[in-house]
């Protein structure tokens, strides 16, 4: 026991501090990617529902491709492909090469992946909003933007949150895939700690517990949010089935 606490101590030679810094990096990537995913998803959902045929086709290619390919391949493709493309463009314009920071790259890459799933989740939720809710708003002279922000989005939130909650949990775990491009997030840091100290069990269980705590806190938070979003739902019939 003594040695376990020693290994996990916050300051060296303990690895706790390293793990927490890596955890912080993971959380930043997950939050950023989820946020970008929501923005892409909202734009994508509205584009798929109300956009012209060209826009709709483009969005379909995006959501189908992203959802078809394994995330690991997407991350390698987007990470190396995008940085390479960016640097070529910069070289052509006589700027020097740049090194994209791991956090920024992670947020963008995972955000693009999350956006594809969010597009479908939000599209389904928007279409499930009863048309009468939107007609009442239009009939009172609400401009389209206001209808979206004040009526459609709040109404579809309760329908979208279970899917979005899943997506967030996937985001927290997909950060581990950033280890493949050498980004120092929680999983990579855990592996380094484990292989340096040979205390594999200690560190992987510690990392597992951290992911579990993130999941439990998130589930609790999303459940509260959903209860609030569904505050106007009709009372549930209880008993019988």
């Amino acid at each position, binding site marked *: 026991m003594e040695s376990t606490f020693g290994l996990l101590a916050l300051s060296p030679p303990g690895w706790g501090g390293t793990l927490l810094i890596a955890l912080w990096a993971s959380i930043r990537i997950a939050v950023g990617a989820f946020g970008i995913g929501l923005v892409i998803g909202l734009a994508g959902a509205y584009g798929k529902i109300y956009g012209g045929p060209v826009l709709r086709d483009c969005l379909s290619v995006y959501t189908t491709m992203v959802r078809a390919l394994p995330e690991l391949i997407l991350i390698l493709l987007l990470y190396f492909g995008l940085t390479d493309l960016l640097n070529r463009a910069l070289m052509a314009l006589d700027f020097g090469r740049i090194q994209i920071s791991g956090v920024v790259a992670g947020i963008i890459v995972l955000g693009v992946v999350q956006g594809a799933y969010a597009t479908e989740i939000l599209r389904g939720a928007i279409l499930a909003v009863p048309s009468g809710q939107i007609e*009442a708003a239009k009939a009172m*002279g*609400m401009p389209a933007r206001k209808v979206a922000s*004040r009526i459609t989005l709040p109404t579809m939130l309760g329908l979208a949150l279970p899917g979005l909650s899943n997506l967030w949990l996937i985001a927290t775990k997909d950060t581990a895939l950033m280890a493949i491009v050498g980004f120092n997030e929680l999983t990579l840091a855990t592996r380094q700690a484990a292989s340096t100290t040979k205390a594999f069990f200690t560190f992987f269980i510690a990392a597992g517990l951290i992911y579990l705590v993130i999941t439990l806190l998130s589930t609790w938070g999303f459940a509260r949010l959903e209860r609030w979003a569904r505050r106007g*739902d*009709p009372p549930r019939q209880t008993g019988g089935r």
Partner: protein
Amino acid sequence: MSIATTAPPASITARAEAIRVEDLHKSFGPHEVLKGVSISAKEGDVVTLIGGSGSGKSTLLRCVNFLETPSSGRILIGGEEVRCRGDGTPADRRQIERIRQSLGMVFQQFNLWTHKTVLENLIEVPVHVLKKPKDEAIATARKLLDRVGLSAKENAYPAFLSGGQQQRAAIARALCMEPRAMLFDEPTSALDPELVGEVLAVIRSLADEGRTMLLVTHEMKFAREVSDHIVYLYNGLIEEEGPPDQLFGAPQSARLKQFLKSVS
């Protein structure tokens, strides 16, 4: 022919036209639902549309506030013509929004916003679209809720109200806009029979205070009592129209006679 003897009484001509529909056509794809309908409601008039299911009553009402885009024809609200492009779609989004704000629409299915309390439903557009001060909007809303007998329910969500209460709240929501005219599309058709009366009472009080209304209803007795003019639609055309006593008392067309027999 002397002009003086044929001119209508001054009391009629003096009132401005609130709603005017001229030769309205509306098709959904190949299916022509309205085939040239003209109606007019002067300020203070209650004009009631009756007719069988699918005759185009809702479509006509929805064209008046452009929830449906007319295929052809003219629509004038308070003398102002809605400008349209060549394809019939409204040319000016702002104009449509302004006109919709002046027409309070009440739907068969109430359509209160489910995620807002009754009071929030009432102040939504005044505060967030018309930018009225919130306390002013709340004061107006409370007055109207009191009028429709829902003061005790201002903090309830719509799903927790009866159908009759929801429809009364929806009427109050429309009144919050201080509309020039009201459009009712079968406001009592989704209600249990015992709840119809409380909603009709509210609508009657609006008619009594001289509000302009376009009303679609199957409540023939009520229509006869409150209306100034009845329009019987059949298959997208006006089959017969006139004052209620004439239309219900001495219907001319065979179809109207048949229709009145079927609903009584």
